[in-house]
Structure formats: structure tokens, C-alpha cells
């Protein structure tokens, strides 16, 4: 039951985007469309899962004073692997995510989970936490991407829902990201409050 809690807390209670407000740069930058948000979210999920597992595995052989550089090397390695694999087998997604993939390295949610959770817990808990947090991140990015795509160009996942001329351009640009994010955070806070 405990592991299940570990897994689900990343979705609502400790959602990295809506509650912890970590890693805002890719959140605002990549969520112009739902598919970009989903791709970025899944890439981050993979990196989080792998880095959390590995950091938890090696936590005892890494002396405290060099733990941050060691974790960053682990994270950067997985990000580069994701980048090369994506470039080789999913070239079109790689193109639309472009420069945001290398930026996963400096996404504070990844290092945050490694430092705050994986380095203090068992391998199983850490990998489940990584997966849960990552999927929560992917969920948040997809939701935000879908909302912005719908309001901005009348589509979701490229399916036309409203005619494009009704779209509000601002939602595709950065200011729209802040506005949409603000509303979603308000809704999540409201939901969390009801539960408590």
C-alpha cells in the first residue's frame, strides 16, 4: 500500500508542476501543443525513473561531498541517451522538442527527486517515486498543452475541434502559458483543499 501511495502522490498531492511548481522552464516552453507536452513529459519520465533507480543504487558508494556532481553526471548520461535514441527512432518528435531535451538535465525536478528522495530510500521506492513523479509531470504537461492548443488554435492532438480562426493566439505564446498554468493551479489547489 505504501508503494502505491509513493506512486500516486506524484499525480495530485505532490504534482511537480501544479503543486511543487518545479521545472517551470520546459513546462512553459514545450506545452504549445498537447503532443509536444506528452513527448516532453514521457522523456522526462524515463530520465526520472532511470536516474532515481541508479542514484538509489549507488547512494552508499558516493561520498556526501561529491554527491551532487555524481547525480548530475548520472542524469546527464540518461538525458543524452534519450536524445540519441529519439533522434534515431523518432526523428519527427525530436525535431519538435528540439532544444528542450538537453534541458532535462537542468530540470530541477529530476535532481530534486534524486536528492530529496532517491538518495534516502530503497531502490524499489525510488524507482516507483521516479515513475510516479514523471508520469505526474507528463500528465501535467499534456493537460496544459491540450488546454493551450485548444484555446490557441482550436485543436487537441491536431484534431480540429473549433475552427482555427476562433483561436486566441496569446495562448500559444508564453503569456498564455502563464495564464493557463495559473488557472490549472487554482483548480488543483481547490481539489486538494476539498480532500484535506
Amino acid at each position: 500500500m505504501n508503494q502505491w501511495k509513493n506512486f500516486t502522490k506524484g499525480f495530485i498531492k505532490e504534482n511537480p508542476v501544479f503543486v511543487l511548481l518545479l521545472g517551470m522552464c520546459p513546462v512553459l516552453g514545450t506545452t504549445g501543443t498537447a503532443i509536444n507536452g506528452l513527448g516532453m513529459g514521457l522523456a522526462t519520465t524515463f530520465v526520472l525513473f532511470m536516474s532515481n533507480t541508479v542514484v538509489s543504487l549507488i547512494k552508499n558508494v558516493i561520498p556526501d561531498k561529491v554527491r551532487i556532481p555524481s547525480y548530475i553526471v548520472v542524469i546527464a548520461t540518461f538525458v543524452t541517451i534519450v536524445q540519441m535514441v529519439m533522434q534515431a527512432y523518432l526523428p519527427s518528435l525530436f525535431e519538435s522538442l528540439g532544444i528542450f531535451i538537453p534541458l532535462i538535465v537542468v530540470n530541477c525536478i529530476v535532481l530534486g527527486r534524486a536528492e530529496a528522495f532517491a538518495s534516502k530510500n530503497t531502490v524499489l521506492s525510488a524507482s516507483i517515486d521516479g515513475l510516479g513523479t514523471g508520469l505526474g509531470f507528463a500528465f501535467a504537461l499534456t493537460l496544459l498543452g491540450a488546454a493551450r492548443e485548444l484555446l490557441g488554435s482550436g485543436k487537441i492532438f491536431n484534431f480540429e475541434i473549433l475552427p482555427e480562426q476562433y483561436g486566441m493566439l496569446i495562448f500559444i505564446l508564453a503569456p498564455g502559458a502563464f495564464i493557463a498554468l495559473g488557472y490549472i493551479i487554482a483548480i488543483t489547489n481547490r481539489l486538494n483543499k476539498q480532500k484535506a
Partner: protein
Amino acid sequence: MAKLESTFRNMLVALFGVTLIASASLGLVYNVTKSPIERAELEKQNNAIAAVLPQFEELGTAYKKFPPEGRDSVDIFPALDQNGEIVAHAVKSYTYSGFSGYIEIMVGIDVNNTITGFRVLRHAETPGLGSKMEQWHNDTEKPGQNIVGRTLNEEGLKVSKDGGDVDAITAATITSRALMDALNRANATVSDLDSYTGATPVNN
């Protein structure tokens, strides 16, 4: 197992070990993905060449040529008909003046300097705005914004804000302007080439 002490030796060994394993695994993945990446890029380029050119028999030898102005050479792929005559060129051109910098395009230009098609190969324009350039300037129902089928002259194409007759993408004029720059660069390079080899444009 107790945590290792932060002595100089332990830190050195730990960091060395971590980086060694990291670089070894990266090298492995690099080797595995190297040829698929190259294949994907080549396939993309070939698809783009086929998409932008009119009917042709075979591709001639590709070569690089320096444009009259610009920082880098462009790649030119001549398309030949069954008699070995050049019917059009596919030109891989570029511009640095996009809203987010570099844009690379493949454009087909026939011997009458008419654009037969274009594809955007690489860009970093704003999603939903500048990223629409390929569909926008390919829209045959809107002659104002469509550029395929236009004949390029020495002045080149310009967006209407600059006194030309191409309707730029709504809220992304800079992207359209950059695209025109890349197209004009392609045309200038190819046209220059005709005078250089002494070949005269042939009607086909």
C-alpha cells in the same frame, strides 16, 4: 552498508567511477544509434528532394556552391530528364534570420526559375505561429500566401510588409521574411550557376 566517508581518495574514486561508467555507456549508445540517425537524416533529405521537384528521371551529382551572400555554402541536387538535361534543381538553402535563428529548407526551382515546391528541414520557430510556415506558404487555395508556382526574378520574393506580394503568416511576419530570404538565396545561387556554366534556360 555504511555510507563512504568524504575523504579525498573516496571522492576521487567515486567521481572517476561514475564518469567512467557514464562515458562508457554513452559511447555504447552512440555506436548503436549512429547509423539509424544518419539513415533518418538521409531519408528525410531524400523525401524532401522527391517532394519538391517536378517529374524527373534521375538525380545528377550533388554539389556544394557558395551563394552570392551568406555564411555557408548550399547543397544543390540537379534533377535530369531521360535525355540527361537538367529540368530543375533541388536546393538545400538556409537563413539565419528566423525568429529563433537558423532555418533550413529544401526548395525545388526549375529551369524557368519557378518554385516547384519546398519543405522545411530544420527550424526552431514558435510552435503554432512560425512553425506553420510549410502549410501556410503551400496553401494552393490562398494565392496571396502560396509561393509554389511563383517565378523568381532578380529582386526575389518579398512579404507584403516589405513591398512584395507574399502574404506573411499572421503574427509571424519575421518567419515568413526569413523563409523568403532562404528561397532567394537558393535562387540566387542556382541562377548564378547558369551564367557560370553558360547554360541557357530551356523550355521543357
